[in-house]
């Protein structure tokens, strides 16, 4: 299932609506549907907030294949953007030392099993994959 969405956070209602339709069509359990909504939003929001240069719509695709659910997003005519290999979010820090920075990718890596990045001819493509047999959230303690 595929959709195109204007590169703005206001498109998120439609983006999540696409996930809802996909979840209903494929009978996803609510835990998987929640995880997929969150991951798609986090990746879309990262494109909107951080990819430089894009004006064309962001494409979002959801597929089921071989016991996995795949989410793929394309952002066209943008500067190269790499999903940062950042250190785990330090969730144990006290309140005054906590920030929300990095939480989005922390969630993507916790709820989905693989995250890959590609860049070609001005297009960023990010793919996230979740094994459908999973029922848990991977809790990373970070350091």
């Amino acid at each position: 299932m595929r959709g195109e969405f204007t590169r703005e956070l206001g498109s998120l209602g439609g983006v999540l609506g696409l996930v809802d339709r996909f979840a209903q069509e494929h009978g996803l359990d609510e835990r998987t549907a929640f995880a997929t909504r969150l991951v798609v939003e986090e990746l879309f929001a990262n494109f909107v907030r951080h990819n430089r240069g894009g004006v064309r719509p962001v494409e979002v695709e959801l597929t089921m294949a071989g016991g996995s659910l795949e989410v793929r997003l394309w952002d066209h005519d943008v500067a190269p953007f790499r999903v940062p290999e950042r250190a785990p979010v330090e969730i144990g820090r006290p309140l005054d030392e906590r920030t929300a920075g990095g939480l989005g990718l922390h969630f993507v890596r916790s709820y989905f099993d693989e995250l890959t990045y590609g860049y070609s001819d001005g297009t960023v493509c990010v793919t996230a994959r979740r094994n459908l047999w999973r029922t848990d959230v991977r809790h990373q303690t970070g350091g």
Partner: protein
Amino acid sequence: MFDIRRADDGRWVLSGRLDASRVETVRAALREITGTCQLDFSDLEYISSLGLGVLLEAQKRLGASGHGLVITNLNEHLTDLFRLAGFDSVFEIR
């Protein structure tokens, strides 16, 4: 759909989906809170990282004066999310 409103008993009730497009609405509402206050999540089905960031921002502001947000009635998905974010140690959750 998303909504945030103040109930008659002083709770703030959030409902629907708090995605990134709703963050400024929430930020503006939370600015009205000046003391310890309950946020009732019983009708909130979803929140993403930017929404959590706004909650954290408010918690830090209130914490500076000895106050804080009390988060109540998280569903199981939001409970997992708060735990994953480490927010179960920076918010009082009931």
